């Protein structure tokens, strides 16, 4: 069981970067007027950001990282670890984290590696970085997360195209012997591998003759094998079944009462899913469950830090008990809870 507490870790700051270009649900020509209205009301997305061809996830993470380092007045020489969590890397190889190490002019003494996770990736990334910093031998670490999911959705797929937005975030973490523990509960179930999947392009099916053929899977859903395929009902049931017990176990392990938690920051999957999870957890005070999905859509691993930066900037300057929970593609899901000191949030960056 991957229940874990990690000592001596401070989250010092977070920065988020999104593309300037917006797309609006109300302009999505494949939706009827009724569908637009229902989508905004139930899924919760009014607008989202879409990166142009020349901007990748690593570009957004780069700008977030530079701003955060400058705002916190960090010395780049102190950064001993860079982790890039993404499912939209710049190349098949080398790892994007290494390219970012050089581009950010971090020293060659920085360890850097990629992690291929999506919706659960922010909490997994926090856990990995915390585990590396906990001994105090590495003083500072930079966690970069995000995706350019719009790269993989097809315009004629109503089940994915209006759902995803692009974003990249940076989180500054440091060794601090006075910090209280961060508690994690991370889980996996590969039985759900088909629930969100891009079939072709990697090693199992590289490129086939039919890889780029657009086929109609069902009414309103056209895509190729290179596009992201999503089984909404399966994902919904997975989230309903797994997130609540994961959070309950975590709180029990951490000996933290649910009522003590100031903010529950969930992966911004879909308002209907998140509201169902909130009700199952019996969190009645809706101000404790912030949303950013209305402005950015589902931004994969960036959704939790993007929500913190855009919805909780002022509130995070105070001490809080925070519970973060990411869940989705894999299936993979992970939650963490901790007492935060002041977390600095940079102003949202738009490129």
């Amino acid at each position, binding site marked *: 069981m991957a229940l874990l507490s990690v000592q001596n870790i401070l989250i010092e700051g977070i920065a988020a970067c999104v593309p300037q270009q917006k797309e609006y649900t109300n302009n999505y020509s494949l939706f009827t007027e009724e569908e637009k209205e*229902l989508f905004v009301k139930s899924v919760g997305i009014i607008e989202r950001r879409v990166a142009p061809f020349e901007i990748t996830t690593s570009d957004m993470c780069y700008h977030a990282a530079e701003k955060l380092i400058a705002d916190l007045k960090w010395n780049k020489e102190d950064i001993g670890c860079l982790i890039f969590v993404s499912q939209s890397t710049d190349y098949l190889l080398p790892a994007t984290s290494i390219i970012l190490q050089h581009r950010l002019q971090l020293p060659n003494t920085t360890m850097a590696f990629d992690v291929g996770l999506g919706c659960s990736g922010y909490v997994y990334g926090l856990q990995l970085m915390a585990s590396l910093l906990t001994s105090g031998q590495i003083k500072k670490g930079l966690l970069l997360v995000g995706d350019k999911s719009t790269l993989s959705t097809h315009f004629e797929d109503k089940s994915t195209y209006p759902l995803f937005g692009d974003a990249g975030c940076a989180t500054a973490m440091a060794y601090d012997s006075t910090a209280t523990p961060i508690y994690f509960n991370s889980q996996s179930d590969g039985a759900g591998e088909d629930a969100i999947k891009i079939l072709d392009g990697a090693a199992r099916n590289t490129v086939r003759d039919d890889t780029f053929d657009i086929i109609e899977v069902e009414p*309103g859903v056209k895509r190729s094998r290179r596009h992201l395929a999503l089984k909404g*009902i399966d994902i919904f049931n997975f989230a309903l079944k797994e997130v609540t017990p994961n959070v309950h176990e975590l709180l029990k392990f951490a000996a933290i009462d649910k009522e003590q938690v100031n903010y529950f920051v969930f992966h911004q999957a879909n308002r209907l899913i998140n509201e169902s999870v909130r009700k199952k957890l019996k969190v009645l005070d809706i101000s404790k469950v912030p949303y950013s999905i209305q402005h950015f859509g589902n931004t994969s691993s960036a959704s939790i830090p993007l929500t913190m930066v855009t919805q909780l900037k002022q509130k995070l300057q105070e001490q809080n008990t925070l519970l973060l929970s990411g869940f989705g593609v894999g299936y993979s899901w992970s939650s963490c809870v901790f007492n935060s000191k002041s977390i600095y949030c940079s102003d949202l960056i738009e490129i």
Partner: protein
Amino acid sequence: MISLDEFTKQLAAEFEDVDPNTITPSTNYRDIKNWSSMYALIVIAFVDANFDVQLNADNLRNSQTIKDIYDIVVAKQAN
């Protein structure tokens, strides 16, 4: 468990711009005005929240009417 009529009434209230009186236990829910895959999620959320039962993709695929859904919920609650 509530009655089939009460279940139908409560579920009917989940649909926007639809006169609830036009929805009966024998209504094929896919025929309800503006039915879409989004409504499938709304039905799943409704059943989960009110009856603590999860409808999976097969349950929906193999059901036609509101009564079919009710029967699945009753059967799952018994298990």
